[in-house]
């Protein structure tokens, strides 16, 4: 989230699209109710199903899954065509005025530089024109045909209400009603918030769905303001934290990058990370990258990270591909290239696409290690459960070690919520049996491995034997020790270069924030964006003062929010060029003539004069980006692409299949149904129920009583056509697998008219498996395709093709 749950009360219009907050985030959704009750805010829901959020919405519009970009570009087209633009904001705070260099272009669904064989672009032309002064060329008058604004206008012009209806199935009048309500938020005193979740991310163009809405929010002037923003609801209790801490193939904590093998040494690595400002006076805060990187390396390798060895640069692995994400690793596993795999609190057999392929991969491992508080299907993938998991254990040679871990109630530490608040919690109970914390287990594994390397030697032991592990009890580091380490500390006294008698930083002290980090090895800090969470003043994440000055919804003394305890990102953009709030009734910060003050921590240097320094301080432009240069693989603007399995060809680019740069593994093409394949005529989608959490709560007796049994959801029209009765058994199958479930026949789903073709939708809740207290069922991933988003490889769980027939239920072996 750019904003916070408690800030949603400040909005005038909530758009829930790509999520279902009333069902999946009920207690957060209460802030929508607050806004409706106290401000008269309206709620719009756009979704293939008339879901629980829709049932309390002021306006609902249906949309076919996988067509969101057409809808969003249609909204942008509507706003531009009808002058629903916050002009002052757009001109000053976005890159609308920036001129794009000659050579860049877009035609028939593809941008300049496409290579069909590589399924990739040469992105060299996707950049600004640079002037003789070394800065990007801008045209304040917006007359230059190559300025971003005119390119955008041209790009979205085809997305008329008529085209939106053809692609999305949203009736024109409904689309126009939504567009009209959204357009009203272009005035500086009205704001809209976007609440989205997996309904937008789980597509082969998920990142561009989100960009589409972010662009709209910028055009309306809704980023950085109270009640505005782009608000990812986020699924798991610390998924934000795990991402912030870079537990991903290609990341270092705080959104730094693991080197690629093209970056053979540290100098080369840093050479592309200078982040020189693209306009005069801009902060371009990533210019501090080196300080964050060196401090991280000191935290990782302590005294072994030295100036002489480039802070241990060669201790880090180097990538030869974009990432070894979960799809790639399971593809490698299936091809026999992985021997050992760890699942820490994770149930991939249920959570990744195409269960059959996953099971085949797990069966080729030598050893699978599962650390979990609960039984999982993954740990028992070798167990025969008849039709629910048909295997012969004797055929599976994989050894499995299952380690019992503590759960939240038995553990201490911090979690990051959707609004970036790091909240500390304390344990309330003793672990069951011999269960241990994950930290203890990781420490034990590390110490044993280190011992083996010390004793026996082996392949490059250096990073393992030199890992900084100076905890009081090395076998069991405490949460406080680790939190202090993430915050960072001073390693050696630092003196003022002007006045050497003045000590600026004192060795042994905790850093007060990332502003103190240095690139000379005198500071350490595990995760720069978390710095400030555990300072000399103590554990800031454990703060519990719930006062809220001005009733602004900021709660600055409650826990700690990254970065720098800031509650709304880009909040400088809540003020006009002179530093006065766009909407005085929704003041967040303001320029008092000498400095920025207000209810939130200013997202700008406290004395940076308004009118000089732009609000988007991380970007070299100083502005936000409507056109994103070469930073996304599938284009600087979003384009409507069909899902890989789709009932229709792409209306705007019939020759383009799916997202043209999404990665597809060789074996998987043949596992996709053809476009419009009559064998798989129905558009499937997956979703969650309020009574269940993923595959966990089927282990919970209460939740299993509330929703004991698997079902799929279909329209009355499809039920009639196929002879399916309410509550009757059905078989649903895709080209990859099948499931049996009871049918819920409902008015909540309606067939849609897509470019003259009637398309039925089949809804598949995800929560069932062969372990737990609920009745056995089939995970939704028996059906879903093995393909991910082109930028970040989130699997396409939300749009795929199936068939359905009445059935007598699963045959129990």
């Amino acid at each position, binding site marked *: 989230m750019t904003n916070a749950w408690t800030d949603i009360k400040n909005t005038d219009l909530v758009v829930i699209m790509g999520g279902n907050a009333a069902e999946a985030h009920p207690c957060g959704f209460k802030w929508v109710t607050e806004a409706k009750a106290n401000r008269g805010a309206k709620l719009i829901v756009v979704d293939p199903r008339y879901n629980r959020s829709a049932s309390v919405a002021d306006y609902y519009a249906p949309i076919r899954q996988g067509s969101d970009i057409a809808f969003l570009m249609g909204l942008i087209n509507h706003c531009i065509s009808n002058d629903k633009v916050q002009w002052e904001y757009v001109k000053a705070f976005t890159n609308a005025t920036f001129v794009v260099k000659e050579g860049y272009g877009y035609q028939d669904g593809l941008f300049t530089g496409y290579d069909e064989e590589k399924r990739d672009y040469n992105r060299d032309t996707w950049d600004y024109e640079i002037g003789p002064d070394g800065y990007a060329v801008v045209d304040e008058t917006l007359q230059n045909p190559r300025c971003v604004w005119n390119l955008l206008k041209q790009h979205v012009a085809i997305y008329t209400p008529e085209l939106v209806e053809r692609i999305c199935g949203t009736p024109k009048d409904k689309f126009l009603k939504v567009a009209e309500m959204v357009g009203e938020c272009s005035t500086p005193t009205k704001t809209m918030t976007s609440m989205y979740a997996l309904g937008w991310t789980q597509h082969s163009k998920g990142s561009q769905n989100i960009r589409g809405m972010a662009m709209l929010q910028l055009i309306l002037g809704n980023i950085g303001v109270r009640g505005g923003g782009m608000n990812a609801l986020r*699924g798991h209790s610390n998924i934000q934290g795990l991402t912030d801490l870079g537990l991903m193939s290609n990341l270092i904590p705080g959104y730094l990058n693991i080197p690629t093998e093209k970056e053979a040494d540290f100098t080369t690595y840093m050479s592309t990370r200078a982040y020189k400002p693209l306009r005069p006076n801009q902060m371009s805060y990533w210019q501090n990258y080196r300080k964050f990187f060196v401090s991280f390396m000191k935290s990782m390798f302590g005294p072994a990270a030295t100036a002489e060895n480039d802070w241990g640069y*060669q201790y880090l692995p180097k990538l030869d591909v974009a990432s070894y994400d979960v799809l790639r690793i399971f593809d490698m596993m299936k091809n026999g290239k*992985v021997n050992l795999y760890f699942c820490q609190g*994770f149930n991939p057999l249920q959570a990744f696409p195409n269960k059959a392929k996953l099971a085949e991969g797990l069966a080729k491992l030598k*050893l699978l290690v599962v650390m979990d508080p609960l039984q999982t299907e993954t740990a028992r993938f070798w167990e025969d459960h008849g039709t629910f998991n048909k295997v012969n254990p004797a055929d599976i040679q994989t050894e499995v070690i299952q380690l*019992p871990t503590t759960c939240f109630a038995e*553990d201490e530490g911090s979690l990051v919520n959707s609004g970036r608040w790091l909240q500390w919690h304390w344990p309330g109970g003793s672990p069951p049996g*011999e269960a241990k914390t994950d930290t203890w287990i990781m420490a034990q594994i590390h110490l044993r*491995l280190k011992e083996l390397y010390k004793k026996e030697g082996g392949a490059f032991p250096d990073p393992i034997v030199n890992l900084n592990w100076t905890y009081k009890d090395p076998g069991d580091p405490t949460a406080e020790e680790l939190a202090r380490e993430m915050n960072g500390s001073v390693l050696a006294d630092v003196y003022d270069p002007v006045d050497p008698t003045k000590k600026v930083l004192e060795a042994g002290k905790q850093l007060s924030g990332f502003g103190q980090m240095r690139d000379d090895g005198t500071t350490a800090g595990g995760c720069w964006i978390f710095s400030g969470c555990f300072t000399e003043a103590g554990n800031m994440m454990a703060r519990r003062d719930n006062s809220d000055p001005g009733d602004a919804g900021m709660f600055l003394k409650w826990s700690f929010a990254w970065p720098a305890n800031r509650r709304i990102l880009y909040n400088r953009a809540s003020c006009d060029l002179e530093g006065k709030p766009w909407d005085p009734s929704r003041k967040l910060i303001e320029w008092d003539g000498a400095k920025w003050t207000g209810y939130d921590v200013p997202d700008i240097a406290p004395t940076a004069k308004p009118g000089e320094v732009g609000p988007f301080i991380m970007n070299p432009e100083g502005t936000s980006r409507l056109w994103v240069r070469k930073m996304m693989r599938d284009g600087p603007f979003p384009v409507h692409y069909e899902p890989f399995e789709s009932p229709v060809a792409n209306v705007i680019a019939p020759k383009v299949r799916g997202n043209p740069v999404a990665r597809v593994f060789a074996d998987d093409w043949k596992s996709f149904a053809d476009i419009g394949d009559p064998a798989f005529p129905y558009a499937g989608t997956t979703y969650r129920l309020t009574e269940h959490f993923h595959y966990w709560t089927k282990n919970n007796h209460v939740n299993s009583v509330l929703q004991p049994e698997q079902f799929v959801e279909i329209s009355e029209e499809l039920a009639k056509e196929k002879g399916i009765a309410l509550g009757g058994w059905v078989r649903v199958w895709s080209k990859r697998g099948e499931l049996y479930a009871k049918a819920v026949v409902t008015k909540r789903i309606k067939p849609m008219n897509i470019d003259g073709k009637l398309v039925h939708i089949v809804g598949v809740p995800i929560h069932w498996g062969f372990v737990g*207290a609920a009745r056995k069922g089939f995970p939704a991933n028996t059906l879903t395709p093995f393909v991910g988003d082109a930028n970040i490889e989130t699997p396409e769980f939300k749009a795929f093709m199936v068939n359905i027939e009445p059935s007598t239920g699963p045959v129990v072996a």
Partner: protein
Amino acid sequence: MNMELSRRTFLKTSGAGLAGTTLGAFGFSEAEAAVAAAVKPFHLVNTTEARNTCTYCSVACGIIIYSKGDLRKGETADIVHIEGDADHPTNRGTLCPKGAALRDIVKSQTRLTQPMLRKAGSDKFEAVSWDAALDKIARAMKDDRDANFIATNSDGVTVNRWLTTGFLAASATTNETAFATYKVVRSTGILAFDNQARV
């Protein structure tokens, strides 16, 4: 009954074995005292409280865990109740159908309680000791890493990566656990490192 006297205070007092004298002092008759004495003591009497966060979605509702026994005194603590934290700015005491049933996930019949090993081709798990399990894991890692570690690529560039082992990290562990996990995993050269963010 005196409505000024809260249910909790009333039951707490009666449950503490002071029924006769205390209730007498409040003006209750003997019959009422007899009824009060027969009432099951309020189940949160003599519990310790811990502030925690719901383990499910990222709304991150504040919760209070009530336990018999006090971990801070080194005692064993048995969780008897979990409810919403009314002081929490986001949820203000409320919980959803999942959060309201949190105690039952802590107490689930399918909680794991000891390390287990499934041998190649076997149809069952067998109990093993922590030491045996951890030694086996470390040995397997060492052997696989030594056999498959890639120090340089075909161009002679130092790459120091290990691709035949992968690690999926949890999404409900603390930041502190995540950071410890990061350090241990990254120090080995594993690149197949991922978390729930993608799904």
